[in-house]
């Protein structure tokens, strides 16, 4: 059976070149990068190289990049580290209602520990309400955190403008760029980003490696305490092979950026065009103007998302319902909710993400099967166009 993976926002396969770069660091050059003998120094050099590759992709200095165990860790580190460090200055954070759970659940935890959090809303097209951000700033505000690209609807947020607002008021600005990295140009210095979360497994690197960009001069408290790794900012024996893979993936993402954006957008647009033309009762969520090149978030009226997902899976197609992480919970997507999409329609929403291995034939295969599946499920459904909801 044909296999069509259309969930690149959930995770990506490791590219062959990336795996090749990683391989020597498991069995051969396996030294502990903190060790002073040749084995260790070689390992250290490999990490230094990877740090440079990632820093280059985002326009940072290498010593502003700290490797972590995941994008989530970078998010947690930022929120806990900045609020701890600046506790004397204030106890207020501003973020949005459409952040990843790594931000939202950290904020909820912090709220139980005396931190005030403002969750700014979004417009129906999935872009954050800029004016609400500025209005929310108080003299207790220590951090504004707004994601670069939303993981569900793919909307690119105006982080440069938000950074300006933050800095005008002397507030630090963080962006969760886990979905943004490799999918839109990033220059942390030009964009005024103080801290930025990244993750390797979204850019054809391995799972279990992330990174935090922290501008020189910003000094969030450590989150993982212990050894002096990462210049004393993040303890744990380094994920050597994983970091090497992240570096290689970053290098490839940089070389490939324009092409990647062009090809994915074209395929994605073709998918959306075909789906909306062939299948009635479909809506695309989120603005098409500033958008993740691979993301197509589509509501199919009168049917439920998991059914669609399972039937697609039965013909070898992988997609996700709303956000991968919440796909096991019964709660409707918080992102679509914040955008004002009616709950019954949220239940019928599917996220497709194309990536570097997607072909036009894949899209045709998906559209053909999707049309059949949607028709079949609508036949079964107790609601329909005539009956209404």
């Amino acid at each position, binding site marked *: 059976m044909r296999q069509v993976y259309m969930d690149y926002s959930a995770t990506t396969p490791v590219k062959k070149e990336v795996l090749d770069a990683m391989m020597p660091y498991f069995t051969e050059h396996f030294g502990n990068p903190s060790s002073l003998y040749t084995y260790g120094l070689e390992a250290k050099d490999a990490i230094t190289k990877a740090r440079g590759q990632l820093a280059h992709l985002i326009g940072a200095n290498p010593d502003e990049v700290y490797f972590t165990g995941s994008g989530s860790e970078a998010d947690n580190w930022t929120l806990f580290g900045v609020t701890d460090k600046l506790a004397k200055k204030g106890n207020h954070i501003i973020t949005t209602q459409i952040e990843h759970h790594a931000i939202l659940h950290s904020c909820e935890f912090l709220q139980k520990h005396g931190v005030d959090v403002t969750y700014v809303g979004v417009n129906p097209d999935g872009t954050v309400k800029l004016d609400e951000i500025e209005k929310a700033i108080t003299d207790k505000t220590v951090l504004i955190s707004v994601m670069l690209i939303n993981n569900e609807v793919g909307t690119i947020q105006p982080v440069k403008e938000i950074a300006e607002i933050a800095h005008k008021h002397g507030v630090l600005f963080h962006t969760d760029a886990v979905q943004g990295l490799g999918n839109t140009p990033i220059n942390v210095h030009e964009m005024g980003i103080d801290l930025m979360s990244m993750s390797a497994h979204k850019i054809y690197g391995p799972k279990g490696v992330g990174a935090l960009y922290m501008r020189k001069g910003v000094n969030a408290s450590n989150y993982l305490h212990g050894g002096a790794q990462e210049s004393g900012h993040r303890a744990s024996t380094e994920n050597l092979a994983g970091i090497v893979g992240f570096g290689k993936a970053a290098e490839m993402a940089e070389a490939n950026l324009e092409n990647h954006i062009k090809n994915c957008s074209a395929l994605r647009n073709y998918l959306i065009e075909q789906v909306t033309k062939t299948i009635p009762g479909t809506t695309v969520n989120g603005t098409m103007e500033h958008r993740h090149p691979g993301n197509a978030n589509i509501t199919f009226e*009168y*049917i*439920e*998302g*998991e*059914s669609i997902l*399972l*039937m697609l899976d*039965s013909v070898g197609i992988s997609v996700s319902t709303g956000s991968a992480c919440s796909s*096991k*919970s*019964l*709660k*409707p997507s918080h992102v679509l*909710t914040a955008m004002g999409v009616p*709950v*019954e329609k949220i*239940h019928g929403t599917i996220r497709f993400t194309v990536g570097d291995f997607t072909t036009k034939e894949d899209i045709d295969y998906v559209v053909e099967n999707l049309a059949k599946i949607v028709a079949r499920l609508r*036949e*079964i*459904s*107790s*609601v329909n166009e005539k009956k209404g*909801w």
Partner: protein
Amino acid sequence: MALYNETVMDHFMNPRNVGEIENPDGKGVYGSPVCGDMMQITIKVDDNDVITDVKFKTFGCGSAIASSSMATEMIIGKTVDEALAVTNKQIVEELGGLPAVKLHCSVLADHAIKCAIYDYAQKHGKTYKGLEGFDPNADDDDENPEGCEGPGCKA
């Protein structure tokens, strides 16, 4: 491990008794699209109180569709009393089990059938032991997601 076992997948991919009976003797609708699951059951009952036909239509996830399909199969050919004796646990058993987070789907199917029989009973002036204490407007026990108005029979 697959999300659902083979029986569930079979009833999801090839659901039995899909549709809507014209001029049914009883009709029940339970759940709501807002909650993510809504089932409609139509039944035909003959003079001997035997359920001769059942059809369902379901908006919902894989296990909601599979539960509906299984439930209809279980009650066709049964008397109304026998059908009322079917529990959601039995539906789950016949399906060979459901993931814990999906157990409520079997409850919905059970309720939708009771709603249809309730409708039949109302319209035909009948009373059944199995309907004693049955409140067609009661919520099920699950915690509903925010914004969900709760189920309740909507015939």
